[in-house]
């Protein structure tokens, strides 16, 4: 280690070099992003916008590669979640599709429409397999149980919940109990016989097909028309969405409300459960509830800490949301036919495994390294790439002050060159900083006098752009006046400079107009404030 880290002699610096620095900007009061928030915004957003009308339902295939289906108008479109492009479309519907659901093996998909028909398709061949007709009114939700391949649950505007035998196209159970439209439902992730349904009568009912009397097992009142209901992964809790709130209920405790999340401003239309796909960190592989609402916000809710951890805005009312099981894709459907898909950058694990195989196959032995001798070139590079150990005491090399071009010129007292060089750059803050430094050296006006025509044009261009900026106007308006006073002759002589002056005039007039209107506003407000203060 000793030869690697050459100890630097402690150099006593008498006077240091400071580069010119622009004025600091105030830090925003907003809190910095949490790591989780960073994670959720790391989804690369992608818009799918060639659909026609509202997207009422999105469902992900439970098997890899996790295609997703989006109901749209009178068709159902299947998208690849890798490329986010449509794969196939089921378009033989007679009315608007309201809901869709993949079977647990991902080979069948069920879809319902406003005519009251439920259809089951083969996903790969797109062949319609079954037509389930029993609902008298539009069907609003259809769902495959997560552990059962033979049955279906559906509900509709006739306020009946039906339990179907898919193969026989027959209704096994008609469950009456809701007094208004049934809008949503979900099947238990741990039990194939149990499911919940939510309805516009503000209630969420839990059903068990094994119960004889066809009555709901548990009933909870959400307080608003229920738009969506889901089971949380444990199966003991459900989350309901309705009105502006998302409520979490503990079913094992007999339907007790655990928490009510009310951070949306408009009706929450859809919720789903997603997983944090990070392998490391505090919140790795935890579940979150996504909720979307008509106010265009998507919120991520941590139901362990009962805290909204991320919030994201979209430019349209949102209708539906889905999240893939592999945590890579999250899709949101909006009311105007745009799908906001987000996909996380995939790790190149596939490629890695291939590379590993290649190395495993080729059993090429590494050549024996020869001992280093001073005659080898490598000898002089030995141990240069070595990393410090844990316990090593590091002596850092003193950081060199990086000097920009204008700083170097200022150091040589070449003031005009420094000003021209920084004017040629793009950074406004630096230009102002150099000007302030020149003011402190009492050299700015001398510089202005010495500028030739081209450089003067550069300066006037800068002043035109920035002299009305409130942040710099204190210095720059004064400077503009001085420049015009001192270089009036030269400006009159040159057409290019006259053009700059015209631009300058325009921006000043614009600023004056703004100031006038601001004063008007102030005139309106100040009596109000006076009255408020008198109270």
């Amino acid at each position, binding site marked *: 280690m000793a030869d690697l880290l050459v100890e630097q002699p402690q150099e*006593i610096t*008498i*006077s*240091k*070099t*400071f580069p010119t*620095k622009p*004025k*600091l900007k105030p*830090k925003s009061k907003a*809190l*910095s992003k949490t790591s989780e928030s960073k994670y959720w915004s790391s989804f690369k957003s992608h818009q799918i916008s060639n659909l026609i009308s509202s997207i009422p339902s999105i469902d992900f295939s439970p098997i890899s590669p996790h295609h997703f289906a989006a109901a749209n108008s009178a068709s159902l479109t299947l998208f690849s979640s890798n490329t986010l492009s449509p794969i196939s479309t089921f378009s033989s519907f007679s009315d608007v599709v309201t809901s869709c659901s993949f079977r647990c093996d991902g080979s069948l998909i069920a879809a319902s429409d406003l005519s009251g028909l439920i259809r089951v398709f083969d996903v790969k061949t797109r062949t319609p397999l079954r037509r389930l007709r029993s609902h008298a009114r539009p069907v609003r939700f259809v769902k495959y149980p997560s552990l059962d391949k033979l049955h279906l649950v559906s509900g509709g505007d006739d306020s009946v919940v039906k339990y179907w035998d898919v193969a026989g196209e027959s209704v096994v159970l008609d469950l009456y109990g809701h007094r208004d439209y049934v809008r949503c439902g979900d099947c238990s992730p741990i039990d194939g016989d149990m499911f919940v349904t939510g309805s516009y009568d503000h209630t969420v009912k839990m059903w068990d097909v094994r119960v004889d009397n066809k009555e709901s097992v548990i009933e909870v009142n959400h307080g608003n028309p229920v738009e969506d209901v889901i089971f949380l992964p444990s199966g003991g809790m459900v989350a309901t969405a309705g009105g502006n709130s998302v409520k979490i209920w503990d079913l094992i405790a007999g339907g007790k409300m655990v928490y009510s999340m009310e951070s949306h401003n408009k009706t929450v239309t859809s919720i789903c459960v997603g997983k944090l796909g990070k392998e490391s960190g505090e919140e790795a592989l935890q579940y979150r509830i996504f909720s979307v609402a008509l106010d265009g916000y998507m919120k991520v809710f941590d139901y362990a800490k009962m805290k909204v951890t991320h919030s994201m805005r979209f430019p349209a009312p949102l209708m539906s949301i889905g999240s893939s099981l592999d945590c890579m894709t999250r899709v949101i459907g909006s009311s105007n036919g745009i799908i906001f898909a987000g996909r996380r950058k995939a790790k190149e694990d596939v490629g890695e495994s291939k590379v590993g195989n290649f190395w495993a196959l080729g059993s090429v032995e590494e050549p024996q390294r020869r001992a280093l001798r001073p005659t080898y070139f490598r000898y002089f590079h030995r141990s240069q790439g070595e990393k410090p150990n844990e316990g090593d005491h590091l002596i850092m090399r003193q950081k060199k002050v990086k000097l920009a071009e204008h700083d170097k010129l200022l*150091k040589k007292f070449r003031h005009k060159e420094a000003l021209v060089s920084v004017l040629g750059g793009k950074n406004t803050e630096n230009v102002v900083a150099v*000007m*302030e*430094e020149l*003011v*402190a*050296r*009492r050299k*700015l*006006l001398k510089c202005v006098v010495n500028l030739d025509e081209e450089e003067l044009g550069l300066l006037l261009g800068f002043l035109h752009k920035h002299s009305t900026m409130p942040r710099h106007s*204190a*210095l720059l308006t*004064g*400077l503009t006046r*001085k420049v015009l006073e001192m270089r009036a002759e030269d400006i009159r002589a040159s057409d290019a400079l006259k053009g700059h002056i015209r631009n300058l005039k325009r921006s000043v007039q614009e600023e004056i107009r703004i100031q006038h209107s601001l004063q008007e506003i102030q005139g309106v407000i100040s009596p109000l404030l006076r009255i408020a203060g008198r109270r």
Partner: protein
Amino acid sequence: MIRGGRSYVLSPPAFSNDAKRLLVCTSNSVTIFSTATGLPVASLDGHAALVTAVIVVPASTPASKIICYCWTASLDGIIRYWDFSVPELIKIINVNLPIISMVIPTLLSQTAETNEKSPKTFAYLSVENTKEPEKESSKALRGQIKKFNLTNSRMAGGMTLTETKQPEIITVSSSGKYFGIRFKRKLQIWKVPTAETERAMVKKITLHHTKNMNVLAFHPTQRIVAAGDVTGRILIWRGFGDRTFADGDGLVNGKLMNNEEERPGVRGDDDADSCTTWHWHSAEVNVLFFSSDGAYLYSGGKEGVLVVWQLDTGRKKFLPRIGSPLLWLTDSPDPSLSSISCADNQIHLLKMPSMEILKSISGIKLPCSFPEMCNGLQSGIAFDCNAGLVALRTENYCIQLYSLFDDRGVSEVVICERNHQPGDEVTVVVTLAVLSLDGSMMSTAEVKLPEEGLGGLVCLKFWALGSQNKEFSLSTIIYEPHRDAGISAIAFHPTRPMAVSSSNGGDFKVWVCNNGIQQMDQPLSNSGWTCHAVGSYKKKPMTAATFSSDGSVLAVAAETVITLWDADKNILVAVIGETLMPVVNLSFVGTSEYLVSASRGSKPQLSIWSMSKLCVSWSYMLHVEVLGYTVTTASTKPTSVVFNDAAMLKCNAYFLELTLQFYSLHKSLKLQCPNLSNLISASAISYSIASAADMSSFAALALLPESSKCNEISLKGRDGVILLFNASDPVPIFTWSVNKAKGGALAFIQANQSSIDENELDGKPPQSLLAYINGDHEYLLFDPQGKEAKEHSAIRQEGLGDLEEAGKFGYASIYGELPQFDPKRKQASWVPSAPLERAWETVFSGSSHNLPPLTKLCSVFLESLLEKRTANVD
């Protein structure tokens, strides 16, 4: 009593023979620094005025390098001879004239000779002729160069070599053959006679130039002299004095024949072969020095760049960016070590051929000149009274934190990140620096002066003390806190992170640090100061601000009235007073109910306001400049201030009362110092005020008016008075007169245990010490209530004392002439120090194979003993 903060650079320093010690003239004493550590190891005290020259007696043989004798000369007209390894005074020679400069050429030329017969030692002195009365006419020649016989301690008869208008500094060649002075546009060079006797004639030549010259230097071996002038030119005369000095030399016979025409560059009839000019410096040259082998010439000046000229070719090398004008360059017997003294009170030790800076000895920053518009504000000196630190503004936009107890710099904070060129026009000024009571926060205000109305900027900065490294780091910058108006005062809340800044623009702002409401998961970097409240009173300029000791009341002076506020709720609680002139300083007197205000101008006033009655308790018609104050304990119980509306009725009797008090003050002052009484009536006295919390007393520093200064004999050289008051009593408890009070400051400093061991011997450690910093940033710490302070005032009454002598009053009066040990030397217990080198202790130490032969050692040993004996006999 602790003194310190002295300038290290008023006179050139000197190296000891082994180059391990550097003897630096520090006002009335010579401080000896170790060149290895850069820390002080000892000091030679005894001179009563500024020490102007220190000359180390060079070693005649290599073995005698450890012998440490030196001569010092001072403005008090006394030359002293020291053994500085002990340190011990050996001999005192009274010249009776203020000595500006002293050289002893015989010491230098002696080195080759054997010292079996000790020849007489002659010194050449540059003295100020005080016998000549100071006239208005500029004809009076006040400077004299005299020859002085040090062995017999008398003036060599009739030997006034020359007379000049001002006393000049003598430069001597390192061979000891020539010495010279420069005055105006002339150089005068004398040749030291080879056989020095009382009457030996000293030959003289004069060299002329067209510009005023600043400095000259002699070549160590050849007859070359270099001089630097005010325009930055360096002139080199070769072969000076060929004609005049030729006789004894035998070296330059041939050149005598040269005819007059072949003397390029030499003016008129000057006695030199040639004169060449080098010009690099843009401003005056202050330092010229030939390297010991004579191959190089070092020059330096106002730019703070050390230039090395190769003498034969004129090639240059530079040591740039020293940051301050250079004043002296001294080389040491060790050819690889030399020192440069800079105007910012720093001495840098240089490793010579490479010009690397090995060590820096840095003293307190000297006061620097600021443009007129910023001078009126405050002295810019802030105190951290618990840690005993003082914060001083420096020229290169820094704040130096200086420990008063340790007498050395603690740290430097760069306030404004800007390159500083010494000698440039000052355009960026740090106007204010204020430390919070616990010393953990600092606030500074800086002003960028505009160029023809362009680009001025006022900045308020808050700094926080780091927890580990004890360095201040920037917390918040506020650009233009009061729009474009300047900041007149900043004050910190005594207990909470809150501060107030008042501006001349008519408002004050209360700032709070949001550290207090920090949450756990929030990163610390988000902390910062934000504006909590803005207040103004009738759009009047706010001129001063202070918090009460418990922080419940904020007092802000709006020109002539004092407004009292609740800082939290920003409510105006009361308005008191009507002074004649704008109040410039405010301070609560400890935890008592009194508020002190000070105003300046044509009708100055020092007023004590009672918070319970909301009216003037007593007042002097005195000009008050600065109100410095300290509150010693932060844990004082909150004393609620009762604002009694009925009491706001100003009693008419107050004026009557005032006149009565005036009378009593007159009387008391007459008792204490008869001269002060007429000063009070001449109402041009300014104050710096400090208050101590526990005893409801405060001290004030008053400047004496010009008119009275010149008349008073007993106050000669003293232009200020420190008055210690009890707030309830207008009669001052103590008064002390001080010198160089302008720009000074006062504060009560909490004494920590380690610093006052001498006071602890009395059994009763004092609560707080009064710190006084004068205009030259020399400071004094003393216990205002203690015994020595009383002795002080006793001395004052007799009109003969000096502040620094008061502490050893009894001792000095009995053993006047004996070597005096400053009480400050007891400090050495906590200043890290190297052991002293005593000749007889170190001569025989070390392993035997390293030691020189015993015969040599013995002679050295005996030599030291013998010389001391002779000195004592003298």
